[in-house]
């Protein structure tokens, strides 16, 4: 177990390396310097040259990349080309907000989907079942920014229940959290329902019933205990979905987190920040996947973790 965990943690390094390589190669393949943004008032050539030297972009590409990797290993991710502050600082500033939004959304998604999926499986083909399946279909197929537009229009513009954009008070957090959680909630509902349905028809459930256990006991200790194992594995992909959802939602609701920073940095072609955010996202997703694999092994003794 420990050996497996260590090996998986070591595998993080090549993953992060490849992500850094792809982002680096593509960003340097783009023509033009990050400093020629203003077409009407171009900087003098000498100034651009000085800026390039200051930020180390005048060196050969492979040298730059090696330098970046060496510095990144020391948690130095360079300096923003636009804000003139260390990338680590900028990301660190937005991180608590994004983490709060993401964790709230993940918890909300679990709080919605587990009961809903369980009930619709227990009452298969009932009105509740069809209703929750319908909602789950909408949640998985309609993109979150489209749902966000409808939600803003109805709840913020027309009913004035919540503020339109911003962050800080609990009222500001309702819409972004809810909408970010919807996709994951819908997906988790579908998985929970399918997994519960499969467990209900197992032999050991029939045995439990036939020896006269109460229905609640059967459902909780026999059905749910087994049905929720596959659900645990989905938390990994759900985290990835929350990460990609977060920058759309943060951008729409002006949430001062990493997601919004990411979108503005891309529009400003602030490559050090882009690179830093990519590495952070890759790290979060990999760690989420690793955690899921480890938890899966603990929940289900039939699964042998590590080969």
């Amino acid at each position, binding site marked *: 177990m420990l050996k497996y965990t260590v090996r998986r943690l070591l595998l993080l390094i090549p*993953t992060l390396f*490849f*992500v850094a390589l*792809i*982002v680096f190669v*593509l*960003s340097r*393949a*783009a*023509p*033009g310097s990050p400093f020629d943004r203003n077409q009407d008032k171009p900087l003098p050539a000498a100034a651009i040259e000085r800026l390039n030297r200051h930020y180390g972009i005048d060196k050969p590409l492979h040298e730059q990349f090696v330098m970046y990797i060496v510095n990144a290993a020391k948690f130095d991710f360079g300096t923003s080309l636009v804000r003139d502050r260390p990338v680590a600082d900028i990301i660190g500033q937005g991180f608590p907000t994004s983490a709060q939004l993401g964790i709230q959304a993940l918890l909300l998604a679990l709080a919605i989907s587990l009961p809903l999926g369980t009930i619709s499986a227990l009452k298969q083909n009932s009105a509740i079942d069809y209703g929750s399946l319908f909602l789950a*279909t*909408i949640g*998985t*197929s*309609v*993109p979150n*920014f*489209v*749902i966000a*537009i*409808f939600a*803003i*229009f109805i709840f913020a*513009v027309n009913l004035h229940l919540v503020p*339109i954009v911003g962050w800080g008070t609990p009222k500001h957090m309702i819409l972004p959290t809810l909408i970010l959680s919807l996709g994951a909630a819908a997906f988790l509902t*579908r*998985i929970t329902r*399918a997994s519960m349905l499969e467990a209900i028809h197992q032999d050991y459930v029939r045995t439990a019933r036939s020896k006269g256990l109460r229905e609640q006991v059967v459902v909780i200790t026999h059905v749910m205990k087994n049905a929720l194992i596959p659900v645990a594995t989905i938390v990994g992909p759900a985290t*990835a*979905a929350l*990460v*990609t959802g977060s*920058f*759309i939602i943060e*951008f*729409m609701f002006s949430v001062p987190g990493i997601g919004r920073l990411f*979108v503005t940095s*891309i*529009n400003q*072609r602030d490559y050090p920040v*882009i690179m830093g955010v*990519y590495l952070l*996202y*890759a790290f979060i*997703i*990999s760690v989420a*996947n690793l955690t899921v694999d480890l938890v899966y092994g603990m929940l289900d003794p039939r699964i042998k973790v590590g080969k």
Partner: protein
Amino acid sequence: MATITARPQTAAELNILHRKQRSLWMDAWHRLTRNRMAMAGLVVVVFAMLVAAFAPMIAPRDPTAQNSALALADPFWVDSQYRNPDYPLGSDQLGRDILSRLIYSARVSMLVGFVPVSIIFVMGVTIGMYAAFHGGWIDNALMRLTDVMYAFPDLLFLIIIFATLRNTWAGDLMGGLVLMFVGIAIVNWVGMARLVRGQVLSLKEKEFVEAARATGARPGRIMLKHLFPNALAPVIVSLAFAIPSAMLAEATLSFLGFGVKPPTATWGVMINEGFVLVTSTPWPVLLPAFCIAIVMLAFTALGDGLRDALDPRMKL
């Protein structure tokens, strides 16, 4: 020509064949037609495809023609003095006709749905089958590549491709559409190749392949005539879901402001441009959002139906 006289006969023959055959594909088709949600989805998809195909004929005006005097007209059902019979669904802040822009956007969406998916299909099936059949370094390379790609969300790959290449000559071809096709194809073909590879790996151990080999069929023939048709069902299902996800990728990128370049009309671009005005004039945003929602739901319903029809064992 002789075919004219022969036609009734062939039709009769076809009819007989048709009744006799009842292949697995026909069975699947019957199951699909009984699925009301899937049929409703199919109707919407076909409608959207027709709108896309005949966009220049249906659209009342040029989707990029501006008229600042008639900016932000309301659609016909809103009771206000800002309605204009020339703009049935209203106009945006630059006075462009929203109806025409929606129609031309359907065209972009369908292109982005079908062109990259065709590339994904050809690349994925060819490489996946070859890797499974021959193994070797191609197989190894494919597996390593999928490992890297799976560790990271597709949208993030697309964003970095667009963030960096959008302002080059490659990003200017057809207003960024070519880059969109290639980008989506590059990001997604690996998943298709892995799916085909898995299918072929399990199929090639089956008896019918052994029988074909025993009768002296060459590898090419085995791949085309025996493995490919049998691996097709899950491939079709996965294509049915790849189309809306490609459209969604375009819409999301364009909405965030780094996808297709304005003035080209796409639903994502329209939402991006109109979003700042959502509090005062919501229709330029709501209408394209509604189009995206409907088309996405239609494709999902159709994809679900196809999955249930083609493989009743796959359940989710």
